[in-house]
């Protein structure tokens, strides 16, 4: 160790720039490029037109309070119902995936591969258009909420199943062995020892999954929904069309970020806490 550092040190003074000087120079060049780019954009942009299209305060003001009391509320309802359904189905699929009965494993693997391989939009169209066509007269209970919840559940379950499975497998084997040595059945060992520990491990990835679902709930745009069922994206787009202005879309975007950025931050915090606990 000491021999390596001393040999690099003796080599350094002969170079024209020391390593530290080189690093400083490179940083200075990067900052200069950044400032030049910002100045160029500021000079080229037509600020008057931009403000007219993106940030019309009177249009923004008109959106309240519906953007919160209807659109944001519906986004939250769709997302949480899809998340809950996805978690339940995901745990079920994960247990099937780990089952010692091969047909269960095959079924779970087939589901996971199919639903992870399809665009979420296709699943929305399938649920919203395909099901009513295929089973005439039948409706998915719960109206639009039911449809969106089902579509999001189907999408989320495939991803969550893999997350839950990884979490269960990350619990050390000794935990199951200790539980079985105390006479617990394999079911009890799973329910009271393994799954609670698996959940602690998968809370950060599940939080990230929640962020993805918030964004995927916007796909409801492609289903015919009534006024009261509109969520952020559809609400913003409809208003943008009638006003021929982008401001509503901007406001809808800010509403998403108000939720997704804190959630992502939370996921990173939880992840860091887990890393510390296992270290």
């Amino acid at each position, binding site marked *: 160790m000491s021999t390596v550092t001393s040999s690099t040190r003796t080599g350094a003074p002969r170079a024209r720039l020391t390593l530290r000087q080189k690093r400083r120079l490179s940083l200075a060049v990067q900052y200069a490029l950044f400032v030049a780019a910002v100045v160029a954009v500021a000079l080229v942009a037509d600020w008057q037109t931009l403000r007219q299209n993106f940030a019309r305060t009177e249009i923004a003001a008109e959106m309240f309070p519906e953007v919160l009391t209807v659109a944001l509320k519906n986004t939250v309802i769709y997302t949480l119902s899809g998340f809950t359904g996805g978690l339940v189905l995901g745990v079920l699929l994960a247990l099937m995936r780990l089952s010692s009965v091969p047909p269960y494993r095959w079924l779970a693997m087939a589901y996971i591969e199919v639903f992870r391989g399809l665009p979420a939009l296709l699943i929305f169209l399938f649920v919203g258009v395909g099901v009513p066509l295929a089973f005439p007269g039948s409706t998915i209970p719960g109206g639009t909420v039911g449809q969106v919840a089902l579509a999001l559940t189907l999408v989320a379950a495939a991803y969550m199943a893999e997350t839950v499975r990884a979490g269960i497998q990350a619990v050390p084997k000794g*935990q199951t062995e200790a539980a079985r040595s105390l006479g617990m059945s394999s079911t*009890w060992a799973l329910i009271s020892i393994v799954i609670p520990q698996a959940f602690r491990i998968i809370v950060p990835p599940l939080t990230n999954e929640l962020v993805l679902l918030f964004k995927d709930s916007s796909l409801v745009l492609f289903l015919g929904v009534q006024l009261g069922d509109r969520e952020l994206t559809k609400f913003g787009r409809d208003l943008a069309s009638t006003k021929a202005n982008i401001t509503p879309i901007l406001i809808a975007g800010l509403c998403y970020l108000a939720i997704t950025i804190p959630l992502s931050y939370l996921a990173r915090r939880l992840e860091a806490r887990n890393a510390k606990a296992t270290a």
Partner: protein
Amino acid sequence: MTAEALPHDRADAAIDVRDLHKSFGDHEVLRGIDFSVARGEVVCVIGPSGSGKSTLLRCINLLEQPTSGRVLVGGVEVTDPDVDIDAVRRRIGMVFQSFNLFPHLTVLENLTIAQRRVLRRSKAEAAEVARVNLEKVGLSEREDAYPAQLSGGQQQRVAIARSLSMGPDLMLFDEPTSALDPELVGEVLSVMRELAAEGMTMMVVTHEMSFAREVASRVVFMDGGVVVEQGPPAQVIGSPQHERTQSFLSRVLDPAATPGPHS
């Protein structure tokens, strides 16, 4: 083979192992073990790493399924396919090298969860049994702590108390002090010494020769998947008959031949 006369009546044995074989794939780890433990006996199993000591213990409570041979615990054949294995395991306490406490539960919950789920004891009854056993291992004040807040020695004592709370007929220990810092070994061994003095039937895989010499009623030396030599500690540790036992003991007992604390 261990054709020598067994020290007690096998029909009444706490553990009776007959011609036990265990293979992992092509690798035969146990190659015909014949051996028994009488009620109230403390048997220490010694032998080099990889000789099959853990596998033998794990075959007794069926954490591993034997390839062939018979294992009887308290007269019940655990290798019988019709046996209720959960019922058998309830009567066998197992203490692991790595403690294996449940990290998401408090000390008290670690001791009560199996009592409640398996023995169907009420919350109050389970807590009462748990507190008696925590007292026994000297950790009464830590019942609300989580395992991560305890030292290794404390965790292993909790693990012993957790097994005792199920009221086992016998206890298996798999190198219970090997994962501990040297200064924490003593507290665990003294709990085990007390248990032995109370008459608990114990089978202990260990490298602590002074513990074996002092507490064991019998020492069993294993190597290469067979029992090479067994007998009273003074005989097996004091004047081993087999060359393999001698060379193992000289490695374990001679401080110059064993790696020091700095390695």
